[in-house]
């Protein structure tokens, strides 16, 4: 029932018989030759072209080709490692390419408690990642401090960086992390930027953006110095 509904909605219909398939194949051949005209051409376009917006295709691609950073903080990292194993297999969702450098990664999984000495390091790693980037806070500790209500641990990683998905658990099972990852994919397909980055003052913190700002600032200074030099009387 549900499948039929989906099929009715889909613009690309399956050929109902072998004859129809043959007709389509011949039409496609004619198109390639440049022989297709008029009603046949219209029918061919109707059969084979799916209209969508570029944004949607882009986000669909992004959500299915995420490179997570190889990054573990504590015991949750053990559970995180097993999502790449054949048993759980995050490759089903296209995120099996763990990147050892933040510059190549799209997603950071905060797997464990963040101590106050580690927080600046984590933030720096996040800033080094290229846009678009996403963060999953895995487990109770990185979401809220968890059982470590003490002087050494940051009470929730979203105090110092934007977090897109919180996965509860202590530690969460790999299935839970995969579910959180699926939620993230759905989020990326819907609206890739919920505005949290601006709230956490993390927009424009990428190093290239910073360098551009420095260059712009440098130009201003240069212009000011030039003006002073031009206005000064000759010695």
């Amino acid at each position, binding site marked *: 029932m549900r499948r039929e509904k989906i099929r009715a909605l889909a613009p690309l219909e399956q050929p109902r018989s072998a004859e129809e398939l043959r007709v389509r194949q011949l039409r496609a051949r004619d198109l390639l030759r440049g022989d297709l005209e008029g009603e046949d051409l219209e029918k061919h376009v109707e059969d084979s072209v799916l209209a969508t917006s570029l944004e949607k295709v882009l986000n669909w691609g992004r959500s299915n080709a995420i490179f997570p950073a190889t990054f573990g903080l504590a015991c949750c990292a053990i559970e995180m490692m097993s999502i790449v194993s054949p048993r759980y297999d995050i490759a089903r969702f296209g995120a099996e390419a763990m990147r050892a450098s933040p510059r190549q990664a799209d997603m950071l999984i905060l797997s464990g408690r963040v101590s106050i000495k580690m927080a600046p390091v984590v933030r720096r790693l996040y800033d080094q990642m290229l846009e678009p980037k996403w963060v999953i806070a895995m487990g109770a500790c990185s979401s809220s401090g968890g059982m470590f209500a003490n002087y050494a641990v940051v*009470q929730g990683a979203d105090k110092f960086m934007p977090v897109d998905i919180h996965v509860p658990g202590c530690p969460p099972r790999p299935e839970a992390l995969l579910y959180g990852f699926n939620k993230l994919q759905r989020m990326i397909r819907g609206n890739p930027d919920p505005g949290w980055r601006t709230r956490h003052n993390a927009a424009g913190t990428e190093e290239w953006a910073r360098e551009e700002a420095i260059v712009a600032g440098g130009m201003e200074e240069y212009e000011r110095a030039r003006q002073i030099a031009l206005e000064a009387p000759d010695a």
Partner: protein
Amino acid sequence: MPDAPGLELIAQELNDAHAGAVIETYHEHEQACLIVDPGQVLAVLGWLRDTPGEEYRFLASLHAADYLPAEPRFGVHYELLNMHRVERLRVRAAVADPGDGELPELDSAVELFPTAEFQEREVYDFFGIVFRGHPDLRRILMPEEYVGWPLRRDFPVGGEPVIFTHNERQVPRWYE
């Protein structure tokens, strides 16, 4: 391990060498401990290290404890070890809290036992006990700009109050 009479002998000889150095002794759970005057702790450690027949040459550990509300409040523990006889002896310097936000002070044992350097930094880091004569006394585990002495008993536990359904009414406007 010096047994209880052996510990008393050591305490007596120490008091003969340095008057008033040993305040108290105790021998519990097969552990021997000398509680000493913090002003003479270096003399005691040096005597235990160098006197023939004692020769506790190895400082196995240096750590502190906060005994609040006991007075004197802090104890700095030196765990000494004689490697030949495999005998352990604990020396506890009973350090009082000067109060008024001032930090308690104690002589540094780095001259006698170089291994004390990092351990004294750790004690300073967590209890705020200043070691006079330490070559480089700064925080070792906490961030250097950290304020407070987190392992003191009057240091707040920290964290954030957790709202459960049974106590959400006791925390006004928790949802903000």
